[in-house]
């Protein structure tokens, strides 16, 4: 979330789309109701289903799964053509005035630079026009046909209300009503917050779904405002934290990119990731990358990391290929993985195309599962009637199942969706011989290290040299790790402007990432968490809920990254002169000498407004990108593409181009196209989702939750039920090209059909909480049905829009 849970109460309009907060995040959703009750805020819900969020909304509009960009592209067109944008904000704080290369274009569903063989884009033409000094050229009149605003207008001109309705199945009047609600917040003192979740990310266009909303929020001037922002309501209680720890093949902690084969030396690696400013006077905060990375190397490799050896740069592995979870199982299925360690992750249930996952796991030599509960993955080799049909004795995988303690049985921190890091305390020991995750990781590692010390082996240096300063080597204390992530001075750290002024003495905890250095005098395991454990102690354990700001900031409750800032980009809540757009909800302001107010300023505190330092400090240009000049692999502007299993067989936006039916830049492994179904055989759109009574594949192990939702079901509308002779409560079989599940049918008015591209499309709703282990009735793993294909940018699988057929069982 750019903002935070309590901040939702400051909104004038709450849009819930691509999520269902009332059921998936009930206690956070209360702040929506608070805004409605105390500010007379309106709630608008756009969703394929009439959810419980929709049930308490002021307006609900249905939408076909997988058509969000068509809908939001139409919103962009509405805002631009009805002049409902926040002009001063757009002109000053976005790249609307920036000129894009003459060579850039978009035709027939493809941006310039597409290579059909490689299924990827050469982005050379998607760049700014630069002047002789390397700065981007701008046109303050916003009239140049190559300026971003004009390109945006041209691109979305095609998304008329008629086209939107034709693609999304949303009735035109409903769509326009939503547009009116949204457009109302273009006034400087009106804000909309958008709450989305996996309903937007689980698509082959997932990243672009979110980009579309970011563009809308920028046009409306809602970023940085109290009650504004783009707010991802995330999954697990520490999903934000593990993301921050960078446990991705392409990342290191704190969103530092991990090295790949092309980063031959430390110098090349740093140069590629240390951005140069593309506009004068901007903070370009990413220029500090070498400080963050060097401090990480010092935290990981300690005294072994010196300037002479490039701070052990070569001890970090370089990747040569993708290793996201789909890629991992693809490699495993091809027999290229021997071992696998699953810590608190149940991939047999939560990765698409179960049959493929089953086959892949059976090819492993060894599998280690670390979990508090008996997961399906740990027993993938066990036959469970038709829920898990396997030949046990043919599976040669050696499987270890290690009991971990759960949240209530350990100390440590979780980071919530608001980026607030909160300490929790152990309430009891775990059952039996269960150990904490820390003890298990350390137990395996210290054994392995001892084997390398005794027998040697392949490249033992980083194994033996890994910094391990924990008082009890095989039982690291959570506090030791929190302090290590936060960071400390290894030598006296002095002020960069005045070397006589010592900011932190050697050995002291650092107070924030501004104190990090690139010369090896500081260590920090995660720069964005720097300062969470300062000389003042463990700030994540602070428990003062008081809120003198009245905005719900509670700055003395836990510690939010970065720098305990609660609303990101908050400089943008003020006009160019530093005066809040809305004084009644002022986040910060320029007080004549410095930035201050109701939050930690997201700006150099002494940057005078007349210096023109722009609010989006992590971008080289200082402003936000309506047009994405880098990072997006599938286009600088979002475009509607069909889900890979489309009920239409074509993209109504580009009916004549077979390359532009679905995302042209999505990765497709061999065999995947053959595993996709066609609408003639599988005519119904399916989407998976969560219930208010359950959490993932976890609460099925808890008796109380199992009692409230004991048995697997799917939901269909009345019309489809009549057509197929399915009765409410009857058993049905749902099949996709990849597998099938059996479940009880719930026939409901909450699910309806969509009129799309001149035909009627029915939907099957599939809650996914069941499996062959747990206190519920055993059920089928819903991901038996889902396709093995992911978002073009980050490979999050397309769980939310695929094709099935359904019949009475």
């Amino acid at each position: 979330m750019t903002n935070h849970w309590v901040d939702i109460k400051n909104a004038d309009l709450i849009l819930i789309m691509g999520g269902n907060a009332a059921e998936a995040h009930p206690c956070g959703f209360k702040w929506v109701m608070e805004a409605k009750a105390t500010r007379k805020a309106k709630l608008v819900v756009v969703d394929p289903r009439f959810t419980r969020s929709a049930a308490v909304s002021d307006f609900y509009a249905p939408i076909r799964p997988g058509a969000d960009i068509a809908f939001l592209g139409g919103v962009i067109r509405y805002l631009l053509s009805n002049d409902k944008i926040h002009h001063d904000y757009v002109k000053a704080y976005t790249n609307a005035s920036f000129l894009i290369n003459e060579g850039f274009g978009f035709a027939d569903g493809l941006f310039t630079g597409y290579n059909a063989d490689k299924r990827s884009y050469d982005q050379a033409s998607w760049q700014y026009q630069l002047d002789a000094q390397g700065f981007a050229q701008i046109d303050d009149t916003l009239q140049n046909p190559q300026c971003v605003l004009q390109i945006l207008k041209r691109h979305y001109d095609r998304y008329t209300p008629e086209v939107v309705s034709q693609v999304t199945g949303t009735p035109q009047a409903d769509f326009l009503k939503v547009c009116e609600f949204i457009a109302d917040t273009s006034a400087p003192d009106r804000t909309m917050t958008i709450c989305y979740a996996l309903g937007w990310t689980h698509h082959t266009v997932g990243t672009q779904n979110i980009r579309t909303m970011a563009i809308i929020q920028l046009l409306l001037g809602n970023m940085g405002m109290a009650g504004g922002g783009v707010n991802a309501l995330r999954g697990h209680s520490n999903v934000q934290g593990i993301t921050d720890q960078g446990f991705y093949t392409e990342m290191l902690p704190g969103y530092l990119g991990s090295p790949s084969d092309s980063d031959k030396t430390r110098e090349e690696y740093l140069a590629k990731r240390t951005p140069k400013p593309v506009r004068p006077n901007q903070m370009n905060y990413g220029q500090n990358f070498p400080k963050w990375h060097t401090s990480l190397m010092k935290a990981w490799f300690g005294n072994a990391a010196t300037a002479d050896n490039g701070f052990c740069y070569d001890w970090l592995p370089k990747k040569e290929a993708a290793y996201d979870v789909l890629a991992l199982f693809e490699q495993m299925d091809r027999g290229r993985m021997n071992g696998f360690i699953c810590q608190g992750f149940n991939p047999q249930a939560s990765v698409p195309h179960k049959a493929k996952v089953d086959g892949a796991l059976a090819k492993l030599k060894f599998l280690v599962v670390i979990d508090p509960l008996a997961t399906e993955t740990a027993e993938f080799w066990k036959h469970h009637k038709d829920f898990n049909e396997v030949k046990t004795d043919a599976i040669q995988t050696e499987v270890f199942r290690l009991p971990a303690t759960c949240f209530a049985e350990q100390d440590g921190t979780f980071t919530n969706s608001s980026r607030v890091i909160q300490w929790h305390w152990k309430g009891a020991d775990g059952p039996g011989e269960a150990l904490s995750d820390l003890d298990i990781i350390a137990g395996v590692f210290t054994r392995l290290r001892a084997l390398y010390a005794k027998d040697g082996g392949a490249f033992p240096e980083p194994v033996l040299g890994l910094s391990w300063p924990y008082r009890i080597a095989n039982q690291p204390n959570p506090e030791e790790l929190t302090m290590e992530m936060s960071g400390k001075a290894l030598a006296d750290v002095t002020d960069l402007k005045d070397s006589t002024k010592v900011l932190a003495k050697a050995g002291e905890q650092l107070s924030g990432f501004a104190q990090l250095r690139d010369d090896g005098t500081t260590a920090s395991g995660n720069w964005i968490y720097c300062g969470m454990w300062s000389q003042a102690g463990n700030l994540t354990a602070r428990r003062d809920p008081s809120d003198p700001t009245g905005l719900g900031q509670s700055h003395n409750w836990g510690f939010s990254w970065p720098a305990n800032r609660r609303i990101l980009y908050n400089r943008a809540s003020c006009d160019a002169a530093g005066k809040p757009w809305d004084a009644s909800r002022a986040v910060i302001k320029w007080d004549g000498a410095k930035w201050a107010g109701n939050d930690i300023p997201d700006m150099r505190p002494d940057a005078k407004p007349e210096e023109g330092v722009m609010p989006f400090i992590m971008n080289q240009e200082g402003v936000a990108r309506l047009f994405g000049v880098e990072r997006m692999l599938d286009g600088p502007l979002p475009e509607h593409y069909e889900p890979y299993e489309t009920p239409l067989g074509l993209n109504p936006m580009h009916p004549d181009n077979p390359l532009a039916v679905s995302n042209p830049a999505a990765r497709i492994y061999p065999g995947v196209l053959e595993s996709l179904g066609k609408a003639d055989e599988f005519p119904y759109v399916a989407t998976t989702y969560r219930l208010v009574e359950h959490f993932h594949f976890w609460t099925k192990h808890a008796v109380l939750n199992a009692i409230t939702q004991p048995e697997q079901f799917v939901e269909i509308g009345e019309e489809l039920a009549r057509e197929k002779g399915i009765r409410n409560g009857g058993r049905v079989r749902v099949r996709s090209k990849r597998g099938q599940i059996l479940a009880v049918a719930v026939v409901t008015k909450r699910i309806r059909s969509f009129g799309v591209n001149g035909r009627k499309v029915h939907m099957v709703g599939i809650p996914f909480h069941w499996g062959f282990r747990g206190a519920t009735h055993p059920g089928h793993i819903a991901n038996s049905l889902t396709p093995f294909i992911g978002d073009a940018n980050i490979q999050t699988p397309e769980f939310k829009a695929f094709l099935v057929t359904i019949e009475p069982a």
Partner: protein
Amino acid sequence: MNVTRRQFLQITAAGLGSSSLALLGFSPQPALAEIRNFKLARTTETRNTCPYCSVSCGVLLYSLGDKSKNVKTEIIHIEGDPDNPVNRGTLCPKGAGLLDMIHSADRLKYPEVREPGASDWKRIGWDEAFERIAKHLKSDRDANFIKTNDAGVTVNRWNTTGFLASSAASNEAGYLLHKVARGLGVVALDTQARV
């Protein structure tokens, strides 16, 4: 006298055994709540965080036993933490079942192994589990570690064993696993957070 449930709990805990409720000036209505409060009054309260969704609600764990050495504590009740600025004491239908998750019959209690081709689990000790896993890792790493790629660039990677990390374990666990994985040269790693 109008007191909140928590204040009432504190008063009764302090006053228990020495004074009657009537002397404290309570009306019969809060007195009715005494039966439940008595159960929690002799418990230890621990502040924690619900592990389910990312609202990360504050919870209070109530356990029997005072956490002193040789005392086996047992959590007997969980409720929302009224001090938490986000959930303000509430829990949802998922979190309402937390106690049953902690005490689930499906909680794992001992390290186990399923030998190749076997049809069931076999209990083993931690020493054996750590030793066997460490040997598997070492033998795969030693056999498949890549020091340089075809172009002669130092790459120091091990890509034949994969790691998947939890989104429900603590930051400390995620950080340590990442540090260990990279220290071993692992590139095949991902987290639940992607899906």
